[in-house]
Each structure stands twice: as structure tokens, then as C-alpha cells.
């Protein structure tokens, strides 16, 4: 008997969905768009965080030295650098070595640099690493003070910029999501309202025959849930394949950028999309039934 009733709920919900097909499509579409925005902003934030923490952990300080320092001073300087708080390793890079490194990073276009060997413009330098990423700025400041140091460079601003980007993505993503989410909820409420209106006679008959509130409302609730879940599912599938192809492309053309690719976090995002769709659908139905179906 319970199975008959459940079957009845689904049949009625399906009938309504088909009867108001254009509204159904519009509501599903709105949910898909809102959830696509939600999904991509979440993935973007996750990835920017990942890249930022990658950068932080690989941050090193390059200490460019004045030209023409004596060997004795160089050795002394290395000791002084090691003495700066937070410094974990120091590596001397000769100007010849620096030019080699530069050529290497130019790859097949290295001939552009030919001829520089005679009058190498690059200075000698020390590559300094710190024990923790957040020690970089203070260590860099102290390194600047040392005698014989020309310039100190590290990824100033890069990390800060990335984190600022996540901040804005989060704000605008949330805003867009809120606006579209409200639109989706209202569209579903309208869809359900149309279904209630189309079946008001039948609802009256059901009440006359002693149908409980749950029995009258359930098909409409189910209708909203189906819309929400469908939207969530389509958005999740689109994000899934879209992100997989993005990962692929990045892997081939930008191999040094490491994106979030563990399936656990991705499936969590997809699950959240499905859940959000369900929530939107249920909320829309509930609002509509509350207002238009006084049982």
C-alpha cells in the first residue's frame, strides 16, 4: 500500500512536469546556470589556494651582490646570511652559472643571449631558502641591510595578489550565486504554483475524499525536488567533464601549474552541487505550497 502511494506521488509529479514543460525547462536551466557558477567558483578558489601554497613553499630569496667583491668578503657574507633568523640554506650562484640558467630557461631561443659571455651583465648571487614561507619577508628585509648586497628579490606581491584574487572570486561568486539562487527558487515556486492551479479542482476532490495534507502536497514537493535534482545533476556532470578536460589541457600546455586533481575533493564539489540543487527545489516547492495550497 505504501508502494502504491509512492508510485502515485511519482506519477502525479511526472504528469505535472510534462504539462508545464516550458516552465520545467526554465527552472531546470536556471538551476543549472546557478550551480555552474557555484561549481566553477568553488573550483577556482580551491585551485588558486593550491597554486598559492605551491608558490609559497617554493619561495626562495635571491640576493644579488655588488660587483667585484673579494673572495674573502663573499665567504664572510655567506656566514652572515646563514646567521639571519629563519634562513635554512644558502647557495652561491656565480654570474656564469646565472647566465647558464638563463639560457636554459630560454630553451631553443638561447642564441638570443649569445655574446653576453664576454661582458656578462648578471651579478653573482646567493639563493636563500627559509624554513617557512612566512619568514621570507622579514629575512629579505634583513638581507638587504648586509654589506655587499645590491638587491634582494623574492616573489613579492605574487602570493598576495593570488590571495586577493580568491577573495574577490569568493565575494562575486557568492553574490552571483545568491541572485541566481533566489531566481531559481522563485522560478520553481512559480512552476509549482502553476501545477497547483492546473489541478485545483482535483485538489478539492481529494480533500473532499479525506486525503491528508501530506498526500495532497507530496506530488508537488516531489515535482520541485525532481527539478532541483535534475538541475544539480546536469550541472555536476558538466562541471565534471569540463574540469577533466581543463586538467588535461593544463597538464599538456602548462605542466608546471599543479591543479587540484584528487578525485575526493572533486567529488565533494559535485556532491555539493547535487545537494544544492535538491535544496533549491525543495525550498521553491515549500514556499509555493505554503502560499497557494492551504489545506
Amino acid at each position, binding site marked *: *500500500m*505504501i508502494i*502504491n*502511494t509512492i508510485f*502515485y506521488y511519482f506519477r502525479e509529479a511526472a504528469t505535472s512536469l510534462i504539462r508545464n514543460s516550458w516552465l520545467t525547462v526554465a527552472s531546470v536551466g536556471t538551476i543549472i546556470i546557478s550551480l555552474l557558477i557555484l561549481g566553477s567558483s568553488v573550483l577556482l578558489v580551491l585551485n588558486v589556494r593550491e597554486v598559492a601554497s605551491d608558490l609559497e613553499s617554493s619561495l626562495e630569496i635571491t640576493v644579488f651582490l655588488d660587483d667585484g667583491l673579494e673572495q674573502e668578503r663573499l665567504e664572510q657574507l655567506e656566514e652572515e646570511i646563514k646567521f639571519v633568523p629563519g634562513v635554512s640554506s644558502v647557495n652561491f650562484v656565480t654570474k656564469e652559472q646565472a647566465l647558464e640558467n638563463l639560457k636554459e630557461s630560454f630553451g631553443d631561443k638561447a642564441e638570443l643571449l649569445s655574446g653576453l659571455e664576454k661582458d656578462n651583465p648578471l651579478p653573482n648571487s646567493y639563493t636563500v631558502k627559509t624554513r617557512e614561507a612566512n619568514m621570507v619577508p622579514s629575512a629579505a628585509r634583513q638581507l638587504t641591510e648586509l654589506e655587499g648586497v645590491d638587491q634582494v628579490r623574492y616573489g613579492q606581491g605574487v602570493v598576495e595578489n593570488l590571495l586577493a584574487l580568491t577573495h574577490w572570486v569568493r565575494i562575486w561568486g557568492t553574490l552571483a550565486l545568491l541572485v541566481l539562487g533566489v531566481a531559481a527558487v522563485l522560478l520553481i515556486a512559480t512552476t509549482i504554483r502553476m501545477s497547483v492551479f492546473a489541478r485545483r*479542482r*482535483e485538489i*478539492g*476532490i*481529494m*480533500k*473532499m*475524499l*479525506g*486525503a*491528508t*495534507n501530506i*498526500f495532497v502536497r507530496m506530488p508537488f514537493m516531489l515535482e520541485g525536488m525532481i527539478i532541483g535534482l535534475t538541475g544539480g545533476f546536469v550541472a555536476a556532470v558538466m562541471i565534471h567533464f569540463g574540469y577533466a578536460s581543463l586538467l588535461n589541457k593544463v597538464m599538456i600546455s602548462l605542466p608546471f601549474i599543479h591543479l587540484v586533481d584528487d578525485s575526493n575533493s572533486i567529488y565533494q564539489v559535485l556532491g555539493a552541487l547535487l545537494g544544492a540543487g535538491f535544496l533549491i527545489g525543495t525550498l521553491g516547492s515549500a514556499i509555493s505550497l505554503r502560499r497557494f495550497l492551504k*489545506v
Partner: protein
Amino acid sequence: MIQLYNVSKTYQNKVQALNGITLHINKGEFVFLVGPSGAGKSTLTKLICREELPTHGQVIVNGRSLPRMKNRQVPYLRRKMGMVYQDFRLIPNKTVFENVAFALEIIGASRSEIRQAVPEALRMVGMEKKLNMRPYQLSGGEQQRTAVARAIVNNPALILADEPTGNLDPDTSWELMKLFMDINSLGTTILMATHAWDIVDEMKKRVVQLENGVIVRDEEGGVYGHDH
């Protein structure tokens, strides 16, 4: 079965439909509710199935006070009564069988109960040969008989009929009244609001006459009235 004590009903638009009605109907009675349009007949039936609540007074059905009844208990009250209306209130895209079965589906009856009870009710009203037809394929009398089958399919103790013959021709009306008498003879209480004076006069049942929201006559074996 039904007791009304000093019941008044004033609608929100200030129309006073009933004014101090006291009425008792016993189990197994057949009662006609007569009177001109706007006398309060429909309001009275609505109070008994708790579609409306009285402004003053007490309504008791099956020993339960309706004004005190919680909303969620109303469905269970209605399952113990069958309702028949002038406009039949069948669901157009369901067959005769499905319309009657719907009353049982709603209360969560099993398939085997439905397969047993629906043909029985349809036999009772003489619609057993048309169970796969849809309402628009039926005459008014057949539609109303289907509605009666739906009203009796879960063996209610009470049938409320609001002008059941209002859309039917005289011969068909008589057939329907015979059906109601058969149902009544099996012990079901029937309260019928009607304008059909010829039927009321012929059947010699208890007649309650309403005028301007007041009971002006209540007699056993009565006739419709003198002013028709």
C-alpha cells in the same frame, strides 16, 4: 450521529448564513434539507464536513466536536462520510473505475482491497458495465451514479448530498433517489439538500426547512412546503 447546538455562521463578507440552528439527526435517518436559495442549506452541509467552522455554537459529528477538531484530523472525519454534489466532481482524465478507486487510494488501501470494493460499489449503483469509460462519455445520471459509488466505496456512516439531482432530468432523478433509498436501507444516514419538491413530497421522509438561516419547520414524513 449529527448534533448542532445554537449554530450561527457569519461569513467574512458579513453575510449571515445561519442564525441559531439546533438540529439532531440520528443514525440511519434520511433527512431532506429544503428551502429557497440562500437559506443556508449549503452552509449547513459545509459545517458538517468541516469545510466551514461555525461563528457560534457547537457542531458534533460521530461524537466529536468539529470546532475543537485539529486541522490534521479533518481528513479522517471526511473518510467516514461520503459527499455527493450537483456538479458530480469527477476527475475528467480518470475512468469510472479509477475515479471510484481514487477514494480508496487516497486512504492508502491495498490493491486487493481496491479490486474487491470498487466493483462492488459500481454494482450497487448499476455502473459495473461502464467502468472503463471516462466522465465525458457518460450521461449526467451515470456521472452522478459514479459519484455515488465513490461516496459509498469505503462504507461511510453518513452521506451528505448537496442538490444531487440539480443537473438531472426527472426520470434520472428518480432513479438516483431510489439508489439513495437503497443505500439508506442498509443503515447509512443521509442528509440531502434539495430543491426537488416533487421528490420530497413523494418520499415522505423527515423534512427540515430553512429560511433566512433559521429552521422554520422540522417534520417527519413531511412535504416540501406550501409555497412552491
